[in-house]
């Protein structure tokens, strides 16, 4: 893999560009995504329509049901649509198409049809956008049979997971964190793939396992210095895929460390961390040195006021604090 540096945003862009170049059946749709509309509000799709034309890269009206519906229909006959739902909060106006249709058509048709589509959506706190623009709803979709859900945090995962999602035969929701779009990392080669359902041990450790994903995975790394100073060796796992999630890797790590902290940006109650805690306490019963702990957002909507938003959104300091409390008891 070349050591040229690119941003996470460029990694998503490159993945779309390469996928469309290699496969004529990859098509892209969403609001403002074509080049006459500046290739998307943050520019992830910039350049695609100029290269592949506006029939394959199509700006839509503001109509998320129509967007996902069109993706579902085209996917039924072999296309690989990549639909953009600008922000995760806006998936709420397309839930029927995602949950009752994209996720179920393979099953209800007895395998006659299936939906090899990708839904790209963006979210993430810290941008002062208030209560309706930065929620994380990955737990909803992970609770939906037929759906896959991925949450990349690096350039390599952004590229490798999006490429794998596009090649996957089932609907995949890819949750892109907005605040980290402009962080840099190595530029992946065009043959780079990250398999869906495989977590990554980012930093090995012995005292506690920290499982997180999306921007929170980077925050977990940010916690390491404080943990080191507290004499704690943490193993940091970037889950990367939430549905299906990599039980094997997580269980192996927790069996070794005996402690697990699950960290995510979504509110804690009924969040994805609950499933991970429920499985780990079951599979590793009697082998844990402490209860599985969860950390995330408090159970309230996202506030606008800066100090409140800062307190609301999970960060490395809070992860460190929780991990220290977990180890030191």
């Amino acid at each position, binding site marked *: 893999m070349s050591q040229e540096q690119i941003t996470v945003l460029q990694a998503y862009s490159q993945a779309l560009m390469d996928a469309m170049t290699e496969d004529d059946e990859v098509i892209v749709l969403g609001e403002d995504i074509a080049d006459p509309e500046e290739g998307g509000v943050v520019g992830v799709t910039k350049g695609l329509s100029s290269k592949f034309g506006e029939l394959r890269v199509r700006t839509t009206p503001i109509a998320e*049901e129509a967007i996902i519906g069109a993706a579902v*229909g085209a996917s039924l006959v072999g296309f690989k649509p990549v639909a953009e739902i600008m922000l995760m909060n806006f998936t709420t106006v397309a839930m029927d198409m995602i949950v009752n249709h994209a996720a179920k058509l393979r099953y209800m048709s007895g395998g006659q049809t299936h939906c090899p589509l990708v839904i790209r959506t963006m979210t993430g706190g810290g941008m002062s956008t208030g209560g309706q623009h930065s929620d994380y709803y990955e737990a909803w979709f992970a609770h939906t049979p*037929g759906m896959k859900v991925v949450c990349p945090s690096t350039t390599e995962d952004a590229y490798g997971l999006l490429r794998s999602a596009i090649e996957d*035969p089932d609907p995949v929701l890819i949750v892109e964190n907005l605040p980290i779009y402009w962080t840099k990392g190595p530029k992946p080669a065009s043959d780079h793939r990250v398999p869906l359902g495989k977590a990554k041990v980012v930093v090995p450790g012995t005292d506690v396992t920290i499982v997180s994903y999306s921007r929170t995975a980077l925050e977990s790394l940010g916690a390491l210095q404080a943990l080191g100073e507290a004499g704690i060796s943490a193993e940091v796992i970037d889950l990367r895929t939430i549905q299906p999630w990599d039980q094997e890797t997580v269980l192996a790590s927790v069996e070794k460390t005996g402690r697990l902290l699950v960290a995510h940006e979504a509110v804690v109650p009924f969040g994805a961390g609950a499933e991970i805690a429920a499985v780990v306490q079951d599979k590793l019963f009697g082998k844990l040195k402490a209860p599985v702990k969860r950390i995330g957002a408090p159970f309230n909507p996202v506030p606008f006021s800066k100090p409140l938003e800062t307190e609301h959104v999970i960060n490395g300091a809070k992860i460190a604090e929780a991990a220290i409390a977990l180890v030191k008891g």
Partner: protein
Amino acid sequence: MIPNSPDGPTQLEIFRKMALLKANDERSRKVITTGRLVMPYYSYRGQEVIPSALAVNLKDTDYLCTIYRGIHDMLAKGLPLKDLWAEIAGRVDGTCKGKGGPMHLTDVKHGVMVTTGIVGASMPIANGLAWASQLRGEDRVAVATFGDGASNIGAFHEALNLAAVWKLPTIFVCQNNRYGEHTAYAKATGAKNIADRGLAYGIPGVRVDGNDPVAMYNAAREAVERARAGEGPTLIEAMTFRFHGHVFGDKGGYIPKEELEEAIAADPYPRFRAKLIADGIATEAQLAEIESGFEKDLDEAVDFALASPFPGIEELTSDVYGAAA
């Protein structure tokens, strides 16, 4: 509207489909009444003309997205009786191995791509199939059927607008049977006519007597030709009526007696049957033979279905995900 009416053979073909649909509906209700099958059943009796006159303008390669009240649409499109009956009986020989059932039939071979139980959902998906046809430079059209009540839900609006701005070969066929479940048209719908809504998308909105095979044929033909020619979508509002309430068991107590009687008195089936004979397109004997033929086919289909095994328990958890590439 194209003036010239369908030729004799075409009219006979429309009748053949109508006869199949009517016989199948009557058999379905009989089989449920006699307790041989248990399923939610949405009778389309009275609405046979619409899919029959539409389907003679379609090919197997054209796409159909229909709804829970859509078995007439599917049969007209070519879904074989045995595959249908095995599916609604929940058997392994059904089109969906019994996993879809009467509200979720799919039969890719005949272009029956999606059957949905969610009001409005047939339309956005049909657009995607129409887009696929556009992308491949094919002349396939995608038909979305739905009811009058469905024209008031958001998906209708989003789908028709997208089809208009993308100039998609989607044909939106609203089967206006005057009721959505128990609610009368006027109590749910602001528009005088649903066809008026075409203007809201800059597309043709055609209101037609969906119980008149000739009028329905002409409306469908024009819409299909426009779509194949790349001239974009059409909204067809086909006026009709459902004779047996919303779902099997619904006594239709909310329908004024006179309205129901009038509608049944105007049953399009005997009317068209008589017309074919009067116009010398077919003889009584020919039509009777067609009808009895379907009764035989239905005997076989029902027996086939009930003799077919249920899917094995392993089918419960299969077809959720495919094998990753």
